[in-house]
């Protein structure tokens, strides 16, 4: 890291707890606006429940479309937290410090939102109680334990629980600081949540060990979640889906979109909370470098999927890829996906000047997620709608209806609202991590230059 700003602990406390302890006017407008969009989504869902799935554009055999795309997309975004937090913590990357909590919180809200979409997709969500108590009392049927309906919720809820614990354990010292600096109901709330944390040596040791253990334990969960989601597709013998590369391809795609989402989020937080002293161009530089590696790896896996889709020259696979790449409207979506997912943003990230430019990083990372949403759409819909062997399923053209668009928009509003409310109550940048970074900050004099340095054990 090149920029080492001196941040004394009182300033860190003041800056990072400011929004939690005082409420600016814009917060109410932002929360109300996002809440309204979420309410429209809920109303829309109500209409869907009342009138049935006919309000969606689903047409035989395309029964998985925008809602499942959105599910996969948000599960992907949820990979940001663990990627940033656990891996960077285990590798002792210094630049992680201001980024971790926002990433972890993004994980929790993205995952919770993702979990909603299969429920919405059923059209009769109350029947999903079967997933919680998987026994069909009416017919006395036990569930098929190999079914995706068992493994998807198991993986997602394990990850959600782990991520929530991850956020909470890292939050404990900050809750204690907030408790000590607040009054009234806030003090009681923070005191309750801080679980008696007073910063004794033993408490710090336990907190550190818990953080490291959770980092290590959550990594397999992080990988397995999107792998299991990918198996929803790869296990089926559907041309375009039945591919052995799907698991790593989904995971790396998730990391690509997740880290991009973190870059977008960091740019927004820096602007609205005036965190220029904490989220510096160096952090965007580091995120940009990471994104070059991640996106190029993702492109490699995409190419593998493409190559080996057409490698065997099976007519069904070729027809499916022809539909994806050359047939309207998928050809347009395919072009946009490749342009926004890789071709436009990556050249920017190759230049240090662009990586250190917050506006450039904001827009390019935003573009990536446009591309990655489309990627999931193209992965899911064309394989179901290509020309199948039976004439009655020929030329099925799926077109999303307004209800589906509204649900997608509402999902973005829901995640944004969740993060906004979280950052209203809790510090979105970990105070203790920033202070630890300040303590460990070192410089080495080499010739006439002072070079920033890090402590290694």
């Amino acid at each position, binding site marked *: 890291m090149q920029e080492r700003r001196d941040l004394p602990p009182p300033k860190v406390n003041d800056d990072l707890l400011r929004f939690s302890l005082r409420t600016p006017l814009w917060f109410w407008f932002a929360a109300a606006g996002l809440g309204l969009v979420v309410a429209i989504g809920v109303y829309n869902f109500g209409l869907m429940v009342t009138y049935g799935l006919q309000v969606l554009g689903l047409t035989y055999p395309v029964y998985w479309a925008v809602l499942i795309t959105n599910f996969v997309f948000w599960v992907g975004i949820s990979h940001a937290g663990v990627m940033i937090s656990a891996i960077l913590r285990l590798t002792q990357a210094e630049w992680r410090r201001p980024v971790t909590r926002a990433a972890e919180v993004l994980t929790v809200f993205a995952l919770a939102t993702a979990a909603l979409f299969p429920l919405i997709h059923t059209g009769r969500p109350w029947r999903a109680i079967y997933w919680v108590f998987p026994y069909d009392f009416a017919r006395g049927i036990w569930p098929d334990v190999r079914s995706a309906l068992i493994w998807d919720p198991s993986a997602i809820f394990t990850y959600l629980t782990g991520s929530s614990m991850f956020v909470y354990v890292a939050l404990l010292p900050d809750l204690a600081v907030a408790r000590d600096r607040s009054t009234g109901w806030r003090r009681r709330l923070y005191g309750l949540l801080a679980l008696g944390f007073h910063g004794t040596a033993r408490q710090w040791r336990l907190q550190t060990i818990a953080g490291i253990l959770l980092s290590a334990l959550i990594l397999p969960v992080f990988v397995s979640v999107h792998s299991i989601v990918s*198996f929803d597709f790869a*296990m089926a013998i559907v041309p375009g889906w*039945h591919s052995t590369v799907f698991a790593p391809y989904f995971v790396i795609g998730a990391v690509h979109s997740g880290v991009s989402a973190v870059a977008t989020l960091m740019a927004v937080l820096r602007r609205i909370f005036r965190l220029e002293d904490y989220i510096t161009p160096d952090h965007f530089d580091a995120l940009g470098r990471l994104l070059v590696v991640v996106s190029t790896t993702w492109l490699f896996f995409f190419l593998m999927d493409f190559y080996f889709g057409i490698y065997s020259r099976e007519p069904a696979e070729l027809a499916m890829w022809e539909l994806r790449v050359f047939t309207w409207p998928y050809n347009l979506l395919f072009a946009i996906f490749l342009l926004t997912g890789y071709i436009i943003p990556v050249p920017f990230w190759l230049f240090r000047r662009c990586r250190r430019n917050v506006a450039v990083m904001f827009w390019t990372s935003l573009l990536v997620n446009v591309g990655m949403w489309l990627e999931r759409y193209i992965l899911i819909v064309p394989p179901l709608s290509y020309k199948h062997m039976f004439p009655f399923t020929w030329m099925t053209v799926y077109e999303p209806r307004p209800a589906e668009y509204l649900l997608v928009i509402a999902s973005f509003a829901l995640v944004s609202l969740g993060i906004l409310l979280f950052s209203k109550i809790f510090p979105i940048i970990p105070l203790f991590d920033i202070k630890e970074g300040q303590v460990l900050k070192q410089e*080495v004099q*080499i010739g006439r230059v002072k070079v*920033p340095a*890090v402590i*290694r*054990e």
Partner: protein
Amino acid sequence: MARHHPTAPITAEEATHDLLRRLGQVRAGTGGVVLVLAVLAVAGLVALVALIASGPEPRAKWGYAAATLGFLVSAAQGAPIVAFATRLAKGFWGIPLRRAAELFAVSGIVTTPLYIVLLFQLPDWRGRPSVWFDWPGAPLLWDSIAIVMFSLAGLALLYLSSRPDFAAARDAGIRGPFQRLALGWIGTVRQWQVLSGGIVVLGGLYLMFYPYMHMFLAVDLGMSLVPGWKSAVFAPYHGVSGLQASLASTLLAAAALRHFGGLQRYIGLAPFWGAAKILLALSLLFFYFTWSEFMPTWYGRTPEEIFVLELLFFGPYLWLFILSFSLNFILPFLLLIWNPIRVSIKGPTFVAALVLIGNFIDRLRIYVASWSVAGPVGQHLEHAPPTHYPGLPDLLILVGGPAAVVLLYLLALRFIPPISLWEFKNGLLLTRERPYVKTEVAVVAKPR
């Protein structure tokens, strides 16, 4: 004592003097080892020539030669990536390993001709699934170009990073071709800029080329020979397991240099500790890619998939699969999760040896099985043929290939210092030991 430092404090001048004086010297006992390696390499070459002379049929006889190639490309030619990756990530712990890793680029001298020979043994290509899609000259021309370029890039990277050390040897008056090898290096600012830029560009190219090289090798000499086998994750699996084996080779080379070359002051605990973490991660990735390949194939259960499972996992090569899976994943995982094993020199070295054996067995499983069913386009097999056991020529090739690489490695050490001298001195410049509370810590400067 901070663990990121060499085992004993050493100054830049001492390191220069000590490392350069070793150039051109032959240590006691080395001559015998070189002789044995040379005999094995020549025996392997003779066996290969005999195999070529006997014609391409039956194809199954080429399985062991292909496995040797697969092993060497995996375990040796991937090693320069280890050096480049630690440079890119500014991993100071990797400095003592970098030269040991880059020296494996000499393996290109063995793999390139072997690859080209094997390309000529492939059955008729027309109509066969290929990543080249009937390009004119495919796969012979394009695979040959790929392996030549890949090997040249590795050698260029080795030369580029050794150039300042050649100049140091020249200036120290060491006998040898150092004047010519240094190519006028005097260490101007521009020369250093060209060196660092060149390493980034060449290393980047090598890194980008690496997965595709594995794809060409794994598909053209493996997957395409098996009727109905199409696995998109196989090439990445081959690349990742190759990287795991490359890191293992680097660790073993470093341990050997440390032990037999008297480099204890340069190769301390830190590189083994740092590499052990990556080896653990790569072992987990080995499992993940195996699992990713296995699950959709198992659940797909088309006739072709059942055949592939029988051939590669449950049939005549079941024990090779069990062994390679144990040596590449189960044992490394069970050993490396323990701190005392990771934070040691013997622990990671032992695991590296296991991984290398595991990779060798894995390549046998893949290539011997694939060549055992190599036949005309469109053939359909109900069951996998029985295990194809090696004959004497196969054994000679299996031993001769790696022996030739080790021989070239030892010969290269006569001209190239085993530690990247300029990077080692750079590391000394950027590392300080400072008191911290009641202990001492290593402080590592991270310039841009």
